[in-house]
C-alpha cells in the first residue's frame, strides 16, 4: 500500500455506495440494540432500509449500461482483498430486496404489534435488519467466501424470525429448527464446494475464479465443487426435492416475516446460484458437459406441477402460497435451463415480479389474520367484502400470480414461453402454460372464499389499518405497473442476462 499512498485520491460519498448499501443496515442493527428503546427501533430500521433502497436504485441506474462497479473493501485490490462488484444482475436483486424491505417495515409496524410481545419488539427489528443486511451482503459481494458469511447472517436471523411465530402457533419452533438443520447442511455443502474450488484454483474472488477456471479448464475437483455449490444453494433456494423446510417456515412465521422471506430470501439464493453457474463456472461447461438439462428441467417441471398440485389441496392460505412459491421457483430454474438470453431474463424478471406479487399476497393474508386469527380458508370466509381494499389488493396480486395479461406475472410467463419457443421446445412451452392453470385453481379458490362465501356473523373484521394498506397497495400497484411498463424490470433483466451469459468474460477486470 505504500506505493499507493502518495497518489491517494480521497473517495467521495458516491464512490462508497456499493458498501454503504450493506453497511447502513448492518450499522442499524447494533444501534437499535445499543439504544434499546422500543420507540426508536422501528424508525431506525425504516430509515436504514429506505437509505439502502435509495442507494440500490442509484446503483441500478449506474450499471444499466452493462458495466460494473468494483469496490475494494479495506483498500486491498482483489483477489487479495474482498471486492464488492455491482452489475446489472445483482443491482436488480439488491433493488428488489431493499425495496421489499422498505415496503415491509411500515406493514410490520402494525402486524408486529399484534403478533409479537412488546418486550421483544426492539430485538425483532434488530434481527430484521440483520436478515436484511445478510441478504444484501450476499448479493452485493464479489468474493465467494464472503457470500457464505453474509448468507449465514441472513440465515441465522431468519431462523429466529421464523421462530417468533411461536406466540401464535408452537409449530413455528419446529419449523425454525428444521430450517436451521437444512440451512446449515446447505451452507456446509456450499463451503465444501468452496474448499474444492480453492484447492483447484487457489483463489476466492469470483472474477479470479472465473479466469482461472476458464484458463485451466475443468477437472473432477471443479465438477464436484460445482455439484456441492448447486446442491448447497439449492437447499436455500428450495429447489423441488430440497424444499421441505419452506412450507412450514412460511406458514408459521409472523406475517411480516413471511412477507419478507417469500419475496427476498429464496431470490437472493437464486441470484447466488446464477452468479456461480454463469459467472464463475463457464455456461458452456455448466450445461454441455454437465448436461444439467437432464437435472434441472425434470426437477423444475416436477416443481411446477407437483408443488402447484399440492397447493391446490391446502386449507391454509399461507401454506398454499408457500407451495405456490416452490412451484414458481420451478419457473425460474426452467428459465436458467433454457440457457439463452431470453430464458435467463425470464428468470430474472420473474424473480422480481414474483417477489412483488408474493409479498402483496402474504401482506393481504396477514392483514386478514389480524381479525380472523388464522389463515385457514374457513376463517377467512367473506372477508374480501368486509375488508374491500385488502381484498382488492389480493385480487390484483392474485391475478398477477396466475399471470393474467396486464399484470407482472404475465410478463414473466410470456418471456419464459418465448424462450422455450426460441429453443424450439414446444412441449415445455405447453407444460408451462398447463402448470399455470393449476395456479388458476388455487388462486381462484382464494377469491371464492374471500368473496363468495358468507362472512362469519360474529366476525369483527374491518378494513386493515392504513399502515398495512399502503404497503399492500404499493405492491399491488407494482404488480399491475410492471405488467405494462417493463422498461425497468425486463429492461434491466435483459442487460443482466447478457452480462451473465458472457460468462467469465463478463467478470473480466
Amino acid at each position: 500500500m505504500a506505493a499507493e499512498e502518495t497518489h491517494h485520491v480521497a473517495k467521495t460519498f458516491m464512490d462508497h455506495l456499493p458498501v454503504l448499501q450493506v453497511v447502513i443496515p448492518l450499522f442499524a442493527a447494533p444501534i437499535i440494540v445499543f439504544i434499546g428503546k422500543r420507540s426508536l427501533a422501528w424508525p431506525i430500521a425504516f430509515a436504514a432500509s429506505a437509505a439502502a433502497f435509495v442507494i440500490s436504485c442509484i446503483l441500478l441506474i449506474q450499471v444499466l449500461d452493462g458495466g460494473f462497479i468494483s469496490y475494494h473493501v479495506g483498500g486491498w485490490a482483489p483477489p487479495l482483498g474482498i471486492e464488492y462488484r455491482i452489475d446489472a444482475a445483482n443491482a436488480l436483486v439488491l433493488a428488489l430486496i431493499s425495496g421489499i424491505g422498505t415496503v415491509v417495515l411500515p406493514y410490520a409496524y402494525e402486524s408486529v404489534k399484534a403478533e409479537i410481545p412488546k418486550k421483544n419488539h426492539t430485538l425483532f427489528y434488530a434481527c430484521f435488519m440483520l436478515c436484511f443486511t445478510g441478504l444484501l451482503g450476499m448479493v452485493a459481494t464479489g468474493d465467494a467466501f464472503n457470500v457464505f458469511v453474509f448468507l449465514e447472517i441472513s440465515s441465522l436471523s431468519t431462523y429466529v424470525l421464523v421462530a417468533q411465530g411461536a406466540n401464535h402457533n408452537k409449530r413455528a419452533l419446529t419449523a425454525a429448527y428444521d430450517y436451521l438443520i437444512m440451512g446449515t447442511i446447505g451452507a456446509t455443502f456450499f463451503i465444501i464446494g468452496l474448499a474444492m474450488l480453492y484447492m483447484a484454483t487457489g483463489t476466492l474472488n469470483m472474477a479470479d475464479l472465473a479466469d482461472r477456471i476458464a484458463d485451466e479448464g475443468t477437472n473432477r475437483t471443479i465438477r464436484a465443487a460445482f455439484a456441492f455449490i448447486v446442491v448447497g444453494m439449492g437447499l436455500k433456494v428450495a429447489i423441488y426435492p430440497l424444499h421441505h423446510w419452506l412450507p412450514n417456515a412460511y406458514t408459521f412465521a409472523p406475517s411480516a416475516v413471511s412477507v419478507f422471506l417469500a419475496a427476498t430470501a429464496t431470490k437472493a439464493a437464486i441470484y447466488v446460484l446464477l452468479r456461480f453457474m454463469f459467472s464463475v463456472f463457464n455456461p458452456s461447461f455448466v450445461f454441455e458437459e454437465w448436461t444439467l438439462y437432464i437435472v434441472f428441467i425434470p426437477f423444475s417441471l416436477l416443481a411446477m406441477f407437483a408443488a402447484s398440485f399440492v397447493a391446490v389441496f391446502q386449507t391454509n392460505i399461507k401454506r398454499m402460497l408457500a407451495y405456490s412459491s416452490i412451484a414458481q421457483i420451478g419457473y425460474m430454474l426452467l428459465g436458467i435451463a433454457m440457457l439463452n438470453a431470453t430464458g435467463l431474463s425470464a428468470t430474472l424478471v420473474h424473480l422480481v415480479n414474483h417477489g412483488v406479487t408474493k409479498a402483496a399476497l402474504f401482506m393481504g393474508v396477514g392483514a386478514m389474520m389480524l381479525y380472523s386469527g388464522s389463515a385457514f380458508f374457513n376463517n377467512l370466509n367473506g372477508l374480501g367484502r368486509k375488508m374491500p381494499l385488502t381484498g382488492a389488493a389480493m385480487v390484483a396480486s392474485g391475478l398477477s400470480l396466475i399471470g393474467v395479461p396486464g399484470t407482472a406475472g404475465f410478463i414473466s410467463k410470456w418471456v419464459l414461453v418465448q424462450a422455450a419457443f426460441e429453443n424450439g421446445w414446444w412441449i415445455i412451452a405447453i407444460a408451462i402454460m398447463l402448470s399455470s392453470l393449476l395456479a388458476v385453481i388455487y388462486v381462484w379458490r382464494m377469491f371464492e372464499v374471500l368473496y363468495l362465501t358468507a362472512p362469519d356473523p360474529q366476525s369483527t373484521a374491518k378494513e386493515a389499518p392504513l399502515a398495512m394498506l399502503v404497503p399492500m397497495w404499493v405492491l399491488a400497484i407494482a404488480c399491475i405497473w410492471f405488467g405494462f411498463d417493463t422498461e425497468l424490470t425486463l429492461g434491466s433483466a435483459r442487460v443482466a442476462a447478457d452480462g451473465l451469459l458472457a460468462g467469465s468474460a463478463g467478470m473480466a477486470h
Partner: protein
Amino acid sequence: MIETFIEIGLFAMLVFTAFAIVKTDRLFAVVMLSGVFSLLSALLFVALDAVDVAFTEAAVGAGISTVLMLGTIALTSRTEKKSSISSPLPFIVVLITGAALVYGTIDMPNFGDPMAPAQQHLAPEFLQGSLEDVEIANVVTTILASYRGYDTLGETAVVFTAGIGVLLLLSGLGRRRKDEDEEDA
C-alpha cells in the same frame, strides 16, 4: 515421518469418537464425546500448522459449545429414544454425498504439495504483504483483520445475530428475568 504417525493416530481416535457418538444414546456421554472430538481436532489442527484455529476450536468446541449443550440437556432430556423406524434413506443420502466427495478428491493435489494452486496463487502475496505492508508477525491476524477484515466484520455480525437470537428466543433485552415476570403479571 513421525508427523504422519501422529496424524494417523489422531485420525483413528477421531473416527473412533465419531462412531461412539453415533452409537451412544446417553446424551451426557454424547456431549462429552463431542467435546473430545473437538479437542482431538484441535490437536490435528496444531499438527497441520493451524495454531490459531486449534486455539479457537479448543475454546469453542471443547469449551463453550460443551457448556451450552450441557445446559441444554439439563433443560431438556438426558437420553435419546431409540427410533422405532429405520429408513434406508439417510444411508443412501450419505453414500451419494460421500461418493461425490471422493470423486472430487481424485483430481486434488497431493496433501502437503507445495506446488498446489492454493500454495502458488495468493498465499505468497499474503505472506509478503503481512511482512512489508502491515508489518505484523501473525499472518493469520493480518489477513483476518485487514485483508479479509470485512469477512471478520461479518463474522462479528454473525455472533451478534446469535446473541440477539438467543435473547429473542429465551429471555428478553436489558432486564433481568424477575423484572419481566413482574411486567407480565
